[in-house]
C-alpha cells in the first residue's frame, strides 16, 4: 500500500548554506573564539553542530566552564544541550573539577548530564562521586551514574554496582546486571546467579552470567537447561555458549565449559531437553544449542545435529564441530552424511574428518556437483594421508573448476607414493592439456631424475601453458641435461619461452653458464625476461651482476625497475646498498617499498632513519613494509616506533606492529605491549595474544608490571600468564598472588583457579582461610566452591 504524501526533502551532505556556517565555525576556532562557537551550538543543522562540537572539544579548559554554565542555565534547547554534553565528554582538558561541581548542582537534569559526562570521560577519580549519585532519589540520575560506573570499570565501581543489586529497584537493578556481566569480576557471579530465581531478572541475569566468562556460573546456567519453557532452555544454551567463548578467550586451553558441565549435576535430561528446544530456535540459538550438546557429549543428539548441517553456515559449522566432538556414534552419522548428504551438509562435515575409516565416504564427495565440496574432499584426503587414494584423485586434475584442480594437485603432492609418480608420468602424456599441465606440476614437485624425458618432450608441447610448466619444471629435474635444455630455451625466439626459462634458471643450483645467461637476460628486449632475470640473479646472489642490475633502475618497464630493486636487496655490495638508499626515497610507490624491504634485509645501521621516516608515509602499504623491515634492527628506537605504529589507522599496520613487538625479546617490547593493553582504545584481544607468546624476558616483565597494575590491567595480565600454559608463567602467577598489590592478587587468584595447578589451588585454599584481605578471602572462597 502506498500513500501519496508530499515528499520530505533533506540535503545529502552539507548544503551550500551549511557549508558557509561550517566555514564560519572554522574561522571562530582559528580565532579561539569560544563564546562564538558556543553560540553556534544552536545551529539547526546537526552536521554543522557536529563540527562545532569538534572545535570546542579541541579548545580544552577555556570552553569547559562556559559550557557547564550553559548546562546549568540554558536548558531550553535539547539539541544545544546534547551538543554541550558531547563537547564536555570529549574535551581535551584533564581537569574534571568543573564537571564535579556540575554534578552537585540542585537540578536533577543537570546532575544527570554531569554523570553522563563523567562516565564518558572514564576517569577513575570520578568513581566516589558517581557512587554518591547512584544513591540519588531520582532514577534518571541513579541510572546514569550506574551506567557511568560501568563505563569506568575497576574494583571500586564493581563494589558499588554489587551494592546496587540490593536496591530492589527494577530500573536500577536492570542496567546493573548488564554492567556486572561485563565486569569480569568473580564476585558478580553469585549475586547474578541469585537473580536467576527472580522472573523479572532471569533473562538479563542469564545473559550477564554468560558474559562473565566465569566457570562458576556454569552450574546455575546448566540448571536452566531443565526448565519447562523452551525459550529459557535456549537462553541458557546461548549464555553457556557465550561463557565458553569468553573463558577460552581469557585463559586459552581446550577445556571450557565441558568439565564444569560434567560436574554440574542433574544433567541427565538436559541433552533431550536441548534437542526439543531446537524446534523454533533461530540460527544463533541453534548454533549455541549445538555447542552445548557438544560439551555435554550427548550421543542421542546425533540425529538432531545432523539435521542442522543443512542450515545456515554458522549453524552447520557448530553442528559439524559437535558431531566431530561427540564420538563414535557421531562418526557413523558423519560418514552417512558424506555418503548420502547434500552438498552443503558435506561441506559442513568435511573439515572435521580426520580418520582413515572415513576415506571411502570422502571419496564419494569427489563426485559432488559443487566444486567447493570436491575441492574440500581432496584437501581432506590429503590431510588424512592415505596414499592409496591417489588413483581416485588423478581424474580430477582435469576438473573444470580450477579450485578443485589446485586442491587435488596439492593433495597428490602431499600424499606422494610411487603410484602417484607413475600415474603422473602417465597423465603427462594425456590428451587433455589441463591434465598434462597438472601432471607436470606434480612431477616437478616430486623432483628426481626419472622424469627428464617427459619434461623435455613437453617443452615442445603444442599447448603454450603445458610448455611453460614443463620449462619451469626442468629446474627441479635432477639431470644435467635439464640445465642444457633451459639454457637453450633462454635463447628461444619466443619471448614467453625466454621469460619462463630465465625464471626457471633462477631456481636451479648456482652455475656459471646459467649466471651468464641470466646477465644476458637483463638486456633482453622483453620486459618480463628482464624482470625474471633480475629476480633470478638476486635469488642466486650473483654479486658480479650488481652493476647491470643497478642500470635497470631506470628501465622503461615498471616491473623491471621494481625487480632490480628486489635483486639488489639480496646483494651485499656498496653499489647495491647505495642504490637501495636512493630507491627508498623514490616517488614510485612499488620501487620505494621494494627498497625499504631491501634496507631491512641489508641490516645496516644507516638505513634505520629511512625506515623510521617511512612509518609516516601516506600509503598504508609503505608503512606496513617499513614496520616489517624494522624487525631486522635490534636498536632501541625500534620499539617506540612500533608502539606508535600500533595506533596506525590501518589495521594491517597495527597488526604488524603488535606482531613484531610480540616476537621481540626483552623487557622493552613487553613493556610496550603492556602499555598498549592498559589503554582502553587498543585492540585488547590482539595485544593479549601477542603478549601470550613466551619470548625471553616476557614473563618477568609481565610479573613486574603486575606488581604495579591497577584493577583494570591486572586481570588482563594474569589472563596472559594463564594463556601461556607454561611452568614459568604458572610460577609467575603464584608470585603475583603473593604480591603486595591487592588488585594483582585478586586477579591472580582467578587465573590460578583457571590454570588449576596443584600449587595454585593450594595457595587459593590457604588464602581463603588466612588472608588479611577480606575481598581476596571472599574471591578465593568462591573459587574453591566451584
Amino acid at each position, binding site marked *: 500500500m502506498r500513500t*501519496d504524501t508530499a515528499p520530505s526533502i533533506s540535503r545529502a551532505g552539507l548544503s551550500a548554506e551549511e557549508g558557509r556556517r561550517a566555514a564560519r565555525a572554522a574561522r571562530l576556532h582559528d580565532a579561539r573564539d569560544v563564546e562564538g562557537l558556543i553560540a553556534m551550538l544552536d545551529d539547526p543543522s546537526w552536521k554543522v553542530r557536529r563540527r562545532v562540537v569538534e572545535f570546542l572539544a579541541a579548545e580544552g579548559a577555556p570552553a569547559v566552564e562556559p559550557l557547564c554554565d550553559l548546562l546549568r542555565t540554558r536548558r531550553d534547547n535539547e539539541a544545544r544541550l546534547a551538543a554541550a554534553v558531547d563537547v564536555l565528554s570529549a574535551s581535551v582538558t584533564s581537569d574534571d573539577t568543573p564537571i564535579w561541581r556540575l554534578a552537585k548542582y540542585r537540578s536533577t537534569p543537570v546532575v544527570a548530564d554531569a554523570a553522563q559526562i563523567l562516565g564518558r570521560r572514564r576517569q577513575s577519580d570520578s568513581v566516589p562521586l558517581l557512587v554518591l549519585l547512584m544513591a540519588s532519589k531520582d532514577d534518571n540520575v541513579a541510572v546514569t551514574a550506574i551506567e557511568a560506573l560501568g563505563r569506568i570499570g575497576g574494583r571500586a565501581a564493581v563494589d558499588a554496582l554489587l551494592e546496587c543489586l540490593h536496591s530492589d529497584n527494577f530500573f536500577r537493578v536492570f542496567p546493573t546486571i548488564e554492567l556486572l556481566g561485563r565486569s569480569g569480576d568473580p564476585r558478580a557471579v553469585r549475586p547474578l546467579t541469585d537473580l536467576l530465581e527472580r522472573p523479572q531478572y532471569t533473562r538479563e541475569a542469564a545473559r550477564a552470567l554468560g558474559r562473565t566468562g566465569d566457570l562458576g556460573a556454569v552450574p546455575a546456567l546448566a540448571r536452566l537447561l531443565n526448565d519447562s519453557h523452551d525459550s529459557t532452555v535456549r537462553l541458557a544454551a546461548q549464555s553457556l555458549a557465550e561463557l565458553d567463548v569468553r573463558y577460552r578467550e581469557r585463559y586459552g586451553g581446550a577445556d571450557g565449559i565441558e568439565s564444569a558441565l560434567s560436574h554440574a549435576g542433574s544433567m541427565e535430561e538436559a541433552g533431550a531437553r536441548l534437542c526439543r528446544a531446537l524446534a523454533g530456535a533461530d540460527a544463533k540459538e541453534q548454533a549455541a544449542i549445538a555447542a552445548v550438546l557438544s560439551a555435554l557429549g550427548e550421543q542421542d543428539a546425533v540425529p538432531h545435529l545432523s539435521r542442522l548441517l543443512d542450515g545456515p553456515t554458522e549453524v552447520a559449522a557448530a553442528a559439524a564441530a559437535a558431531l566431530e566432538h561427540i564420538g563414535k556414534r557421531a562418526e557413523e552419522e558423519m560418514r552417512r552424511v558424506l555418503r548420502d548428504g547434500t552438498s552443503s551438509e558435506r561441506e559442513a562435515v568435511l573439515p572435521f574428518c580426520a580418520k582413515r575409516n572415513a576415506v571411502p565416504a570422502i571419496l564419494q564427495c569427489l563426485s559432488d556437483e559443487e566444486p567447493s565440496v570436491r575441492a574440500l574432499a581432496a584437501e581432506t584426503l590429503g590431510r588424512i594421508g592415505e596414499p592409496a587414494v591417489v588413483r581416485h584423485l588423478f581424474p580430477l586434475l582435469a576438473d573444470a573448476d580450477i*579450485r578443485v584442480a*589446485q586442491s587435488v594437485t*596439492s593433495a597428490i603432492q602431499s600424499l606422494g607414493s610411487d603410484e602417484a609418480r607413475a600415474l603422473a608420468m602417465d597423465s603427462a602424456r594425456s590428451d587433455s592439456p589441463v591434465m598434462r599441465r597438472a601432471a607436470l606440476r606434480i612431477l616437478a614437485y616430486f623432483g628426481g631424475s626419472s622424469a627428464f624425458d617427459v619434461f623435455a618432450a613437453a617443452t615442445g608441447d603444442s599447448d603454450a601453458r603445458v610448455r611453460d610448466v614443463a620449462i619451469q619444471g626442468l629446474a627441479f629435474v635432477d639431470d644435467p641435461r635439464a640445465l642444457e635444455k633451459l639454457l637453450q630455451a633462454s635463447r628461444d625466439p619466443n619471448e614467453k619461452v625466454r621469460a619462463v626459462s630465465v625464471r626457471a634458471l633462477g631456481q636451479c643450483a648456482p652455475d656459471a653458464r646459467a649466471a651468464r645467461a641470466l646477465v644476458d637476460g637483463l638486456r633482453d628486449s622483453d*620486459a618480463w625476461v628482464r624482470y625474471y632475470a633480475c629476480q633470478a640473479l638476486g635469488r642466486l646472489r650473483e654479486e658480479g651482476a650488481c652493476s647491470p642490475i643497478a642500470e635497470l633502475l631506470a628501465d622503461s618497464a615498471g*616491473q623491471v625497475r621494481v625487480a632490480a630493486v628486489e635483486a639488489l636487496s639480496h646483494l651485499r655490495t656498496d653499489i647495491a646498498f647505495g642504490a637501495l638508499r636512493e630507491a627508498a626515497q623514490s616517488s614510485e610507490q612499488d620501487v620505494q617499498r621494494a627498497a625499504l624491504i631491501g634496507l631491512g634485509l641489508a641490516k645496516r645501521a644507516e638505513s634505520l632513519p629511512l625506515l623510521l621516516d617511512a612509518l609516516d608515509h601516506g600509503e598504508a602499504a609503505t608503512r*606496513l613494509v617499513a614496520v616489517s623491515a624494522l624487525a631486522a634492527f635490534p636498536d632501541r628506537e625500534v620499539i617506540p616506533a612500533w608502539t606508535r605504529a600500533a595506533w596506525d589507522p590501518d589495521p594491517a599496520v597495527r597488526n604488524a606492529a603488535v606482531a613484531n613487538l610480540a616476537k621481540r625479546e626483552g623487557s622493552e617490547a613487553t613493556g610496550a605491549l603492556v602499555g598498549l593493553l592498559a589503554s582502553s582504545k587498543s585492540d585488547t584481544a590482539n595485544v593479549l595474544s601477542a603478549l601470550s607468546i613466551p619470548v625471553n624476558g616476557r614473563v618477568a616483565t609481565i610479573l613486574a608490571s603486575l606488581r604495579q597494575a591497577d584493577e583494570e590491567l591486572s586481570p588482563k595480565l594474569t589472563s596472559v600468564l594463564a594463556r601461556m600454559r607454561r611452568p614459568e608463567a604458572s610460577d609467575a602467577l603464584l608470585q603475583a598472588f603473593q604480591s603486595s598489590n591487592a588488585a594483582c592478587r585478586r586477579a591472580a587468584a582467578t587465573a590460578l583457579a583457571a590454570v588449576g595447578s596443584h600449587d595454585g589451588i593450594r595457595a587459593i585454599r590457604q588464602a581463603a582461610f588466612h588472608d588479611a584481605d577480606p575481598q581476596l578471602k571472599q574471591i578465593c572462597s568462591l573459587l574453591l566452591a566451584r
Partner: protein
Amino acid sequence: MNGNTRMSPQVFSILSSLIEEKLGLYYDLSQIDALTERLGGRAAEAGFDSLLDYYYYLRYDAAAEKELELLVERLVVGETYFFRERLQLDVAVQDFIGQAVARGERPRVWSAACATGEEILSLGMLLAARGILDRVDLVASDISAAALKRAKLGKFPKRSLRDAWPAGADRFFSWESDHIVVDRRIVDAVQFVRLNLLDPGAVAALPRFDVILCRNVLIYFRDSTVARAVNSLAGRLKPGGVLFVGISESLLRFETTLACEERGGAFFYRNAEP
C-alpha cells in the same frame, strides 16, 4: 601456486589497493583468505606462481586491462533476484517512468551494476504489465562480461525468483525444468553494456537518465569510492531525475548534489538542480 596458501599482509595490502583503485571493490584484512583464493586461481591460470608477480603484471603490463576483465569475473558478487526490494521498483514505475510516458516523453532508465540482469528485467516486466515497455529506453550495465552474457540469455535458476512476483508478471516468464525463462520481448527491450562504474569517461559517455537504479552495489565500496560513484551517477541524471540505491545504503553522509526524498516508504535521491 597453491591457491590455499595465504598471501602476506604486505602483498594483500598492495593487491587490495590496486583492485579498489581499478574496480572499486574493497577488501579488508579479514577477507584475506577469500581474496587469496580468488586471486590465486586466476593468477595460476594467467601463468603466475607468485601473487607479487601477478600484482606487477596487473600494475605494469600492457595486457593488464584485459587481465582485469578476467579477474573481475572471479571477484564480483552476482547475487541478485527478481523483484528484490520491489517497493522501489513500483515507485520508479508509477511515480516517474509512468508519469513521464503519460506526459508524452520517452524516459530513459539505467540499471547500473545490473549483475545478471534480474533487476532491469523485473522493471521491464512491470512496465510491460502497464503496457508501456515499448515507450521506455532501458539500459543495463555491469563490469562483468560473463554476468551480462547470462542476463542476455534470459534464463535463470529457480532461486532467482525467491520473492513473490506482482500480479500479472507471470505472463512474462515461464518455467523450464528447474529454470525460469524470461519472455524474449522483455530481454530484447534492454540494451546491455559492459561498463565499469568507476570509469568516469565511460559513465560520462552515457546519455542522461530519468531513473537510475544502483542498488546493493555501493555496499561493496568504501566511502571514498561510493562518493566517486555517486558523483558519477549524479552527473548522468536529468534535472529532476532520480537515483535509487539499496534500502541499506544511505547517501546522507556524502556530500552530493542530490536531495533525499521519500514516497510511500521508498527512499530515493533526486537531482534537484534546475
